[in-house]
């Protein structure tokens, strides 16, 4: 995949004039704009969507997009074989671009199939109904009277200037992806989830300094990301720090914290920022690893569920999982799973 870039125009928003009300809205006056004109290299709505996502992510990494909505807009041009070029103005989401293109292909094909013609026109995308509507017929060429501005001197970028700019550019999402896969041996899916958010990928790298990167990557890309999305937070607005994740992984690796409780911890820490050791004690999350204690619990569970014990003895393997579940409940998830299974099997075998 590759999309050529023909031109980049640098402009300023001049403000908006609403003729009907006779009002001039100068709130956006002077805000810098860049218009990126691509070559006609995009072959499908999916292609367009992928390109725009990549482009937006790159711009996001560069820190050149303003946060407010509507700050990125696309004028989408589409032509199909046998028709003229149609421009859809001011589509303000990637999804909108995709939907508008899908709709236009169907519409233009239908017009041509029924013997109609596609004339050059500008259309408007209606976000609500996800269809495009004609805005103005016949693009009068007189609308575009461009001459090179004699007051603007040509600006040459010297090789030194170029390398200076390159040296201060942040790492691009594509390079970051390559590096994460090579440096941390992470899977592509995990890496995609991490790099889709610049703050999250930085956060991950901090975690990976003190923990196994595979574990850190997994936790950041899945549970942490899910919790943040759920609460509409980002790592920068949440209370969680890389140390939380590293400490947590540490406890898991020592066998003192269960995966289940670890998930709970993430959900809690993004809001509270509580230290992991404090939480471990407060919530009594330390796993039960002492065989004596576990045996006592097992005995209790077996006593309370004689039917399951009998079922197991008569060859029903599911009964083992049932009993294990009971132990987990009894211990609020703190029983060391592998130890519990092993002890449970021994115990049942002995009773047989």
């Amino acid at each position, binding site marked *: 995949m590759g999309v050529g870039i023909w031109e980049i125009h640098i402009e300023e928003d001049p403000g908006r004039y609403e*003729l009907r009300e006779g009002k001039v809205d100068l709130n956006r006056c002077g805000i810098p704009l860049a218009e990126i004109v691509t070559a006609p290299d995009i072959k499908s709505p999916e292609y367009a969507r992928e390109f725009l996502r990549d482009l937006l992510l790159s711009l996001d990494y560069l820190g050149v997009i303003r946060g407010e909505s509507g700050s990125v807009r696309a004028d989408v041009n589409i032509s199909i074989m046998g028709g003229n070029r149609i421009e859809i103005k001011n589509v303000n989401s990637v999804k909108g671009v995709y939907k508008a293109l899908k709709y236009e292909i169907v519409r233009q094909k239908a017009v041509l199939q029924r013997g109609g013609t596609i004339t050059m026109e500008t259309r408007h995308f209606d976000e609500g109904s996800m269809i495009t509507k004609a805005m103005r017929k016949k693009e009068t*060429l*007189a609308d575009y*009277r461009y*001459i090179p501005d*004699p007051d603007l001197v040509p600006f040459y970028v010297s090789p030194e200037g170029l390398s200076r700019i390159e040296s201060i550019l942040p790492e691009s999402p594509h390079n970051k992806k390559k590096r994460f896969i090579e440096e941390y041996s992470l899977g592509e899916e995990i890496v995609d989830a991490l790099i889709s958010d610049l703050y999250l990928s930085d956060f991950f790298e901090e975690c990976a300094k003190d923990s196994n990167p595979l574990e850190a990557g997994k936790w950041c890309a899945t549970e942490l990301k899910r919790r943040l999305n759920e609460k509409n937070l980002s790592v920068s607005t949440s209370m969680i720090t890389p140390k939380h994740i590293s400490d947590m992984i540490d406890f898991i690796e020592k066998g003192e914290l269960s995966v289940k409780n670890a998930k709970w911890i993430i959900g809690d820490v993004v809001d509270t920022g509580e230290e992991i050791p404090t939480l471990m004690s407060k919530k009594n999350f330390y796993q039960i690893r002492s065989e004596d204690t576990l045996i006592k619990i097992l005995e209790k569970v077996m006593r309370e569920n004689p039917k399951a014990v009998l079922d197991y003895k008569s060859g029903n393997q599911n009964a083992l999982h049932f009993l294990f579940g009971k132990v987990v409940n009894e211990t609020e998830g703190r029983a060391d799973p592998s130890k519990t299974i092993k002890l449970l099997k021994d115990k049942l075998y002995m009773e047989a």
Partner: protein
Amino acid sequence: MFTKDLIENLSCGSLEEQFHKKIETIQKKDNEINSFITLCLEDAEKSSKIIQKKINDGSQGRLSGLIISIKDNIAVSNIRMTCGSKALENYIAPYDATIINSIKKEDGIIIGKCNMDEFACGSDGTSSYFGLTKNPRNVDYVSGGSSSGSAASVAADFADLSVGSDTGGSIRCPASFCGVYGLKPSYGLVSRYGVSDMAMSMEGPGPFAKDTYGIALLLDVIAGKDPRDTMTVDSNNSYLSVVENYRYENIKNMKIAYAKEFFEGIDEKIKNIILDKIGILESQGAKIEQVSLPNIKYVIPIYYLIVFSEFSSAMSKFDGFKYGNYIPGQDIVEAVSNTRESSMGTEVKRRILLGTFITMEEFRGRWYTKALKARSAIKEDFERIFKTHDLLIGPTMPML
């Protein structure tokens, strides 16, 4: 009186007296000549008092109280700036153009804003909404334009110096008609910030004076790099020292060219005067050579293509919403059209319409872009001659 003597007189005599003499002359004669659109006598009197004090302590700037008139397309803070058009009849400039700043800093006294062809569209001084400017040498003749009032005010001794602007002769032509000195500086030598220009890629402000000393003095003050006009370049030369150090014998061994194309279709009387002057230079030891500028025949069509294109672009701001006297309409097109119809003269409208036509997308490659290429060819003709010659000499205007 020559500019240098004038400065000497001012430094020992009374500025006030000089100033009032000028006002008297203006009041007596400008009703007929019509070289000013707006006079700013109060401000001028105030600054004359301040400058008098500076002269007394010997701390005055280079213009030391000379009286200067300004073409009315150059912004002087808090003074009306009309560009000779009804469209800006009541427009008060909110700031000083860069060159006005420089003039004020060097203690020039700005006496008023000069009449001009509307938005500099003309070469005879007759298209101003504020009436035509008459030639002080002979009031039955036009003053030339578009900087008509600038030339006339210097010729009539209403001002010691003046600033005009020149795109295709707008300083040189009225200077020639009114018998004063005028110079169009090379493009980019003088800042256009605060100048409502007609063609951005060619126009530039420049000085009028009664002698070369005055021209050089004023040029020294207004020339140079201005961060607010990206096209400007540094000026490290002192034009005044060039003028002052000029010696009669310097002409010896100078290589002077004149182009044969300059004399095609020219009035016989003018031709003879120019040839006569060339003869004088030759007798003084200059080496005279006839040369050819083969591409100069394209200069008029190219000039109009470029000027109209840039002019129509520059004029788009005078739509009644931002500038000008707004006349409403049913929609924006009608409102702009009503506004321009009622406030602009025929020549201005003609140029806007032609420029709009030329720059339409479908004609872009055909005219404007081609004109820019041809312009480079003409430029090369001149560069070639200046490689081997010191001066290129020719008549300013082909007719009287």
